[in-house]
């Protein structure tokens, strides 16, 4: 199976091709068989590959490479050290513990969401189109995580961006949806520009784009590369990550992305695509390990995003937007982990987050489904008895994300917080930010739970008696993910609690050679203390939410009324979209308009001016020619004409006159010849 690992992305892309070419003619069940079946096969294949990978002999050093073909043989170039290199980018697969985790998460969670979608999208138009896009997404995401070099990773990277664009704008008749899709693509492109520059810089620095080659060179003490270059590579890569993984300052597209169908939000904007940035930073850990400066940036941006998005999430009323900001915030956690050098913890949280956040989104989809499209939590309430399975699973997910032991989120979040404090590049301040965010997270999650499922029903009457639990196709994935959210954390059971940290050990070969936390330095007791603190803050968050939304339902509004300005700023997402529009989007459009005017007026005007000048000079020449050159000719003619007038008088055409003139002439001649005048003249002539 491992030899045919490339089939894992090929199965879903085949599904996509079938949908795009023949989907319109296929029945709904045929679409299901193709587009849910093929990702399912892909998942089974991935599991098979995983076990085969585990069974590989030690000689393979935890990396399995499967080159396929030469893709971009761009040829000779000069490295920055003056050497002659040969850029030869291949298409190939790399399986190591890190990509194993990603591959299983993507195919596993992805498959569940495909199943869910058959129920959720059952009554939507463009059914085949939806599954075609979804399959194409699976392909791109698998290319991203299985690639063996940065350029191929970029292929998947842009591919998931495209699918995100297509799926956000799935309801393309709604302007908000197509706007959101476009925004997602363009904002991601800004990040991608950074990624591309990083790729180019890596090419001239390392002479290769293969992960293994770059990792080996970066860890090779004999290979010298300046701090500035490594810092630049890391920061440029991170710019790409901020776009794809929705970090400050490029997170603005993710909340809008909720315009897409809910399964899309679960798959792309929670579980898989948005974690690509974390995966990429973890994949580049050897580079980041060389640049603590870059790591500090990653940690700072991650921590700021975590708390910032959590603050905005506190006051949102749209159920999916709360989850969207929560995702941004949780991604911030993952970057915080990477930034303090705890890449394993970041990837661990990536995985558990994929479980419970996908679950949260799918549950919210189930709620929306039950309420016939309602997304505003102010119009919900008291749903827990009406849709019990959704309620229970969503409660599990909320407990998991809040970090209540022993659910999955507890282990991963706690590991991050501990590393933020004690990690090789940790700092108490980073821990503090993470700790407060944990409390905020618990608060807004339980605000969501209480507003949606508890209290009095605020559902309009016409909707109320239609409320129904979702079909089995939707509930099965919910339950599966709930189980994973319950127990998924145990694979990372920390040693301090008597576990084996199996997850971390499995990933270790990827991160070997990087500095790690030394427990001796801080001691176990501190670890326990922080652990208790982080559970406490979560409990406090839940308690406050309980008081505000269950015990005293009006309290939330009163708190909001106490500081209306602050409330509105956060309710309106701090006006970041408006600020970006004013600062960048409209400025670019203005610049475009101005340049278009200049192009027409000045650049083309210049051309037309030359044309006009040529025509004018022609006109002047014509005038000169008519009046001066030809004028002179005419003047000459006029003079001749003038002179001819006397002659004209005698030219009468009457023969008698001519005879008369002849006679006169003869007479004159005779007078001259015979008169003395002739002789007088002769004397003078002498």
């Amino acid at each position, binding site marked *: 199976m491992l*030899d045919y690992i490339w089939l894992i992305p090929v199965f879903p892309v085949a599904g996509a091709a079938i949908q795009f070419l023949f989907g319109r003619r296929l029945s709904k069940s045929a679409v299901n068989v193709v587009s849910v079946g093929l990702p399912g096969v892909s998942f089974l294949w991935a599991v098979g590959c995983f076990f085969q990978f585990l069974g590989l002999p030690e*000689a*393979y050093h935890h*990396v399995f490479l*499967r*080159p*396929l*073909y*030469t*893709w*971009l*043989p*761009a*040829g*000779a*170039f*000069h490295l920055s050290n*003056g*050497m*002659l290199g040969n*850029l*030869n980018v*291949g298409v*190939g697969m790399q399986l190591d513990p890190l990509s194993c985790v990603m591959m299983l998460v993507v195919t596993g969670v992805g498959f569940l969401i495909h199943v869910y979608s058959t129920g959720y999208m059952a009554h939507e138009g463009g059914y085949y189109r939806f599954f075609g896009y979804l399959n194409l997404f699976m392909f791109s995401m698998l290319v991203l995580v299985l690639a063996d070099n940065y350029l191929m990773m970029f292929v998947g990277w*842009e*591919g998931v961006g495209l699918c995100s*664009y297509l799926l956000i*704008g799935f309801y*393309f*008749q709604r*302007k908000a949806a*197509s706007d959101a899709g*476009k925004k997602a*693509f*363009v904002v991601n*492109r*800004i990040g991608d520009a950074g990624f*591309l*520059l990083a*790729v*180019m810089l890596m*090419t*001239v620095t390392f002479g290769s784009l293969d992960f*293994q*080659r770059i990792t*080996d*060179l970066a860890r*090779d003490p*004999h290979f010298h590369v300046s701090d500035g270059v490594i810092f630049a590579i890391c920061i440029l890569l991170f710019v790409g990550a901020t776009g794809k993984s929705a970090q400050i300052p490029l997170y603005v597209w993710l909340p809008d992305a909720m315009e897409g169908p809910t399964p899309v939000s679960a798959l792309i904007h929670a579980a898989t695509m948005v974690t690509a940035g974390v995966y990429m930073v973890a994949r580049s850990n050897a580079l980041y390990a060389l640049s603590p400066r870059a790591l500090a940036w990653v940690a700072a941006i991650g921590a700021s995003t975590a708390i910032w998005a959590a603050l905005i999430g506190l006051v949102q009323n749209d159920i999916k937007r709360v989850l969207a900001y929560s995702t941004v915030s949780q991604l911030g956690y993952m970057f915080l982990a990477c930034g303090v050098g705890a890449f394993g913890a970041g990837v661990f949280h990536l995985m558990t987050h994929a479980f419970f956040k996908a679950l949260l989104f799918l549950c919210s989809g189930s709620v929306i489904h039950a309420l016939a499209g309602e997304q505003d939590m102010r119009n919900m309430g008291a749903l827990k008895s009406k849709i019990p399975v959704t309620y229970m699973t969503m409660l599990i997910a909320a407990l998991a994300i809040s970090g209540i032991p022993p659910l999955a989120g507890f282990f991963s979040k706690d590991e991050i917080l501990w590393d933020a404090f004690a990690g090789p590049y940790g700092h108490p301040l980073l821990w503090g930010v993470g700790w407060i965010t944990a409390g905020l997270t618990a608060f807004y999650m339980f605000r969501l739970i209480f507003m949606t499922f508890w209290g009095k029903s605020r559902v309009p009457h016409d909707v109320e008696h239609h409320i129904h639990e979702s079909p089995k196709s939707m509930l099965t994935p919910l339950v599966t993910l709930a189980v994973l959210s319950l127990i998924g954390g145990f694979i990372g059971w920390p040693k301090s609690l008597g576990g084996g940290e199996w997850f971390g050990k499995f990933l270790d070969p990827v991160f070997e050679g990087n500095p790690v936390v030394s427990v001796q330095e801080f001691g176990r007791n501190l670890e326990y203390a922080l652990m208790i603190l982080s559970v406490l803050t979560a409990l406090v968050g839940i308690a406050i939410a309980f008081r505000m939304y269950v015990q005293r339902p009006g309290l939330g509004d009163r708190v909001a009324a106490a500081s209306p300005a602050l409330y509105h700023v956060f309710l309106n997402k701090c006006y970041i979209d408006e600020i970006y529009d004013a600062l960048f989007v409209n400025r*670019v*459009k203005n*610049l*475009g308009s101005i*340049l*278009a005017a200049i*192009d027409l007026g000045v*650049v083309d005007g*210049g*051309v037309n001016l030359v*044309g006009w000048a040529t025509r004018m000079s022609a006109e002047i020449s014509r005038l000169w020619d008519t009046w001066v050159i030809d004028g002179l000719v005419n003047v000459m003619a006029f003079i001749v004409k003038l002179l001819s007038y006397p002659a004209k008088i005698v030219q009468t055409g009457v023969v008698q006159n001519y005879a008369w003139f002849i006679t006169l002439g003869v007479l004159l001649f005779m007078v001259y010849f015979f008169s003395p005048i002739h002789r007088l003249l002769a004397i003078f002539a002498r």
Partner: protein
Amino acid sequence: MAFFHDHILSILLVIPLVGMVPLFFISGENKQAVRWWGNIVLFLDFLASLPLVFWFSSESPNQQFKFIELHQWIPSIGAQYHLGIDGISFLMIMLTTVLGFIAVLSSWNAIHDRVKEYYAMFLLLQVGMLGVFMSLDVFLFYVFWEVMLVPMYFIIGVWGGPRKLYAAIKFFLYTLAGSVLMLLGILTLYLNYTLPNGGHTFDLIELMKHTDSWPLEMQIWVFAAFAIGFAIKVPMFPFHTWLPDAHVEAPTAGSVILAGVLLKMGTYGFLRFSLPLLPQASTNPKVVKVMVYLSLIAIIYGALVSLMQKDMKKLIAYSSVSHLGFCTLGIFALNPHGLQGSVIQQINHGISTGALFLIVGLIYERRHTREIKELGGLSNVMPVYAALFMIVMLSSIGLPLLNGFIGEFTILQGAYEASWHWAAVAVVGIVLGAAYMLWLYQRTMFGPCENPKNQILKDLNFREVMTLVPLVLWAFWIGLYPKPFFNVLDKPVTAIVEQLNPNFFKAPQTKKEAPGIPGGAQAGLRATSKAGGAGR
């Protein structure tokens, strides 16, 4: 077959030329017959060019130029009928024969007046374009260059839109002004090289051997003369303003050829003449700076201007300015990546922008407007059209696994190797490229279809789909497996770089990566030795 093989270039030239003759005997009233004949001739020309694909790589591997045909033409001045192709011109010829046929195929329902003359002009145009890419004699090149001008002038001027005369004359005079300067440059070179027998020659290969003896100052003057001629054709900023007018007024097929092939003649000119004939001038830092800055301006400026256009064709015309900016940037990166990327991007631009103009033409035939605000929600009524437009748009904005990415990335990589600032600026063009194309797509295809005139639009018929499918397939081919294209370009690009910088390939080599990686699908399980640090 041997005759066919030896004279394939002449045959490619002669087919459309001879194809014009029967047109004179078909009655102009019989429009269907004229259309069939025009399509058949250019399809034959395309078929005749196909063997090149198979012959090219096996043909005399050591020669720079292949399929050479050499005959005296005007011995008194040393002008010859000298044809031959290398990898660059080979790709250009294939682009021309494919696009030439597709352009003619797309005009089936679009042209109703003077049909016979229309097809005759396209056949003549084909001769001119192919000739330009085949000539190894500078004089012959100049003749073809001017020949191509005339039919295009008529195509715009007779079958064009409301301001067709303005656009046609502007196109003609602007290009002519450039080519006259180019002629001066050609004559300067001609007169400054004396053959052993005391004569002069226009032979490109002969002239290329002699470049060392030309003083830098003269080279720079000649470079400037060439550059203006080529820059107008490309068009580079600020010589680009004829392009939007010509595109807006030209009929669809005219736009396809104009964008797809004619613009490439400018970049081809730089590659074939400026760089190899004037290496000292081309590598002069000041010259490079000017050319690169103009390219960078074109990339950003073209993208920004196209962002705010209201007419679809104008938008695409300005996007061409931006894309061609990438091509010229690649050329003046003066390294193998830049040059290869540039040629591949030229092909890509022919495919993507050619297809985009077809897309616009298809909607123009139905709605008789190109105003973006007149359209909207078309994907509701024309799903096939929307899908094809989507693919073409993605190829144009350089999405990986489609053609545009391969070219753009290679160019950017080349530019980065020359100076990272250039790449950093050019990368902005990629972001803007996504912005204006996605916005165009959103405004025309998405949203509700409210305009009653749009609600009754018919989706594409088979012929219309077939005009786009070859281009889409080609786009995927380059995106997924560009290796054959790089292989074809390797040799000519190496030759150019060696001419420009003989020391380029003499730098010490990096340690070879482990053999066979990535060398095709032969590898299965493989152990990697991490301890040794050699890795893959």
